């Protein structure tokens, strides 16, 4: 290292600015405002709460951050099951929370014992009870509204649930007649929500996003030692002195695109389940010949996401003129998200927030008269019931670096993933439960479908384990064999249950923050 490169040192280097990175920075800075932190983000800044961007979104549904998604050429899907990354994750100030839906469900107790219960997937090094206080803190931090009691909770939701809308009513009745328990969708958007129905680009910043957290940190005069560098992709990690001390991070300078190296006492990899394993894999040295933390060939393995199941149906008319009035689902059920369903693959049910819908403006634009538009509004009604399906992960599936780099200066990703042979049969069984609901509601033209395998909730590529033969990181998210390198992202989750993993990631992040601050066991809500 040159003298210039070693001149500036940090207590923490955080790689990634999404919900994990921004939350860790917040916790560390609130505990000690003078903490020296460097945050590296590969993507650019896109302004939020911008009135022009919002109007453009309202008029054309054009999101101002589309250029921050993966492009088709950014990844090579080489397994038997095509893995679709476009639209799934974001390289941007604030990370993928910029586009997430705000759905905030907890994992359930059986999810922490997936391998013990089924022989597949991974067990967590600890149980639900240990994480439960952090779930409470995470719900408070994200301003989650809800009212369900499954799984058990020690404190009520901090915010009220959104009501079931009028078009939820007939599905609620069908659920109940079939013995399915309906629930209100827990949502992280209650802080200042005006129900604008444009959650993908909110004009008032109501839905939680890491970008707002970063805005606050960067504007706070107490945090003079917090440095954010955007368009600065991390390239590799290097050790200092011993194999266990990973103190150096090499990244691309955002103005010159030349390699720069910074030193951190502690390095926190918060860059998601695609980038975290690739960063470890390419940090090769004589001490770590297969990459950091990869002595047991586990880095990048066991990727899981959520196969998306859906059943649609139609009725010939819509006399009540139902439309979807929120831009998010309000009706869900966890009846098939239980230990009894784990072997088959649990599902989390939600009424699709895109239906029923009528594009009234499009009718007018196309020259339809008032009477003609009224006939469309009261005409055929479509209803969809959707589900996330749990996956267990396989050692033979793997994320690694492919040849070439993306426009963000990150290596392209080679995704080798194949569904197990019995996947389709298990998914069809779940679709059977879902089809029964729409049949009970009296819908026709029922169309059950297994969606494409996409990367929205990708997890487990550097999963937690009790020892280095089972996992890449320990119960505190520290990479086995190191003293100061942590992976805090969906990559560290041993599985992804049947629900959106963001709330669980925040809970795990708050737990790590306590560990870093020496507060283990002192959790308070």
């Amino acid at each position, binding site marked *: 290292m040159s003298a210039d490169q070693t001149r500036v040192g940090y207590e923490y280097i955080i790689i990634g600015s999404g919900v994990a990175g921004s939350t860790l920075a917040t916790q560390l800075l609130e505990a000690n405002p003078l903490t020296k932190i460097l945050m590296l983000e590969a993507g650019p800044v896109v302004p939020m709460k911008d009135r022009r961007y919002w109007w453009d979104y309202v008029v054309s549904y054009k999101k101002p951050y589309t250029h921050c998604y993966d492009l088709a050429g950014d990844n090579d899907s080489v397994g038997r099951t095509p893995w679709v990354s476009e639209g799934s994750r974001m390289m941007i100030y604030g990370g993928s929370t910029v586009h997430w839906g705000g759905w905030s469900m907890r994992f359930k107790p059986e999810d922490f014992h997936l391998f013990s219960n089924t022989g597949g997937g991974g067990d967590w090094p600890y149980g639900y009870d240990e994480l439960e206080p952090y779930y409470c803190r995470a719900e408070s931090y994200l301003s989650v509204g809800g009212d369900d009691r499954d799984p058990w909770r020690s404190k009520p939701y901090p915010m009220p649930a959104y009501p079931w809308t009028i078009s939820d009513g007939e599905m609620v009745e069908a659920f109940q007649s079939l013995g399915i328990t309906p629930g209100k969708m827990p949502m992280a958007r209650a802080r200042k929500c005006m129900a604008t129905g444009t959650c993908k680009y909110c004009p008032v910043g109501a839905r939680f996003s890491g970008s707002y957290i970063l805005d606050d940190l960067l504007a706070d005069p107490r945090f003079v030692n917090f440095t954010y560098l955007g368009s600065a992709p991390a390239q590799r990690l290097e050790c200092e002195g011993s194999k266990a001390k990973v103190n150096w991070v090499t990244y691309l300078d955002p103005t010159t695109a030349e390699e720069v190296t910074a030193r951190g006492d502690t390095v926190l990899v918060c860059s998601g389940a695609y980038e975290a394993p690739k960063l470890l894999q390419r940090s090769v040295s004589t001490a770590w010949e297969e990459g950091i933390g990869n002595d047991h060939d586990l880095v990048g393995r066991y990727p899981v996401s959520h196969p998306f199941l859906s059943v649609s149906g139609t009725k010939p008319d819509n006399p009540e*003129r139902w439309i979807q009035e929120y831009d998010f689902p309000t009706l869900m059920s966890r009846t098939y998200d239980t230990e009894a369903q784990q072997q088959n693959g649990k599902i989390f049910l939600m009424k699709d927030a895109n239906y029923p819908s009528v594009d009234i403006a499009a009718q007018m*634009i196309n020259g339809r008269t008032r009477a003609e538009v009224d006939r469309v509004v009261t005409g055929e009604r479509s209803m969809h019931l959707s589900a996330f399906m749990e996956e267990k992960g396989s050692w033979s599936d793997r994320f690694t670096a492919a040849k070439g780099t993306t426009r963000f200066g990150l290596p392209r990703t080679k995704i080798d993933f194949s569904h197990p042979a019995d996947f389709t049969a298990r998914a069809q069984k779940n679709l059977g439960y879902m089809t029964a609901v729409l049949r009970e509601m009296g819908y026709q033209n029922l169309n059950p479908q297994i969606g494409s395998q996409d990367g929205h909730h990708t997890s487990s590529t550097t999963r937690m384990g009790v020892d280095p033969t089972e996992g890449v990181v320990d119960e505190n998210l520290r990479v086995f064999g190191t003293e100061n390198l942590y992976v805090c992202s969906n990559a560290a989750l041993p599985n992804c249950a049947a629900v959106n993993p963001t709330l669980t990631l925040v809970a795990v992040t708050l737990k790590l923050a306590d560990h870093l601050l020496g507060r283990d066991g002192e959790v308070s809500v």
Partner: protein
Amino acid sequence: MAHTPHKVGGDICSQMLPPEVLPAEPRPPSEAEIDGLWRVFVAIGETWQNTVHDSAGLRSSWLDFLTQKCVTRPSYIGEYSSALSVFEELDRTHGDAAMDTLFFHSGVNSSTPPTTRLAHAKQYVVDEFIRVQIVIGGFKNFIVPDPPAERPDHIVNHRGFVAGSRYNRVTPVRVAIEQTP
């Protein structure tokens, strides 16, 4: 209403243009431009009969939209200026039927790139005004055409709708009546 597309307007309407937004330096719209464009926005509500009384209650939101589109890049000020010349020509050639012609008989296919001045006016101005008009309140009359007398303000929400001029109210929705199992 017949939908037979046919050539409308005169030389201005038929003038060929590249499909992109007409280049212009950002600036606020003038009073005359606001008046000329407001007339079209009001005509939307009159034509589809979807405003509670008239469009006056929607003006502040529409003005916010219009201003944002003019003062930030890519500025629509060139499109709006161009559209006003189209509307004037339609007035000359179609008289009282100008707006009806524009809404129902323009012959413009809104799903293909606009290559005439008329198509620019239809797609970049009229079509966007229709979307804005629906989002900021025009949807209500289509969804609840006969609101109960005790709640004439329509309890219904829509994607993009913001209640209250200061964005400080939560929009009510039609809710399902919960039955105790």
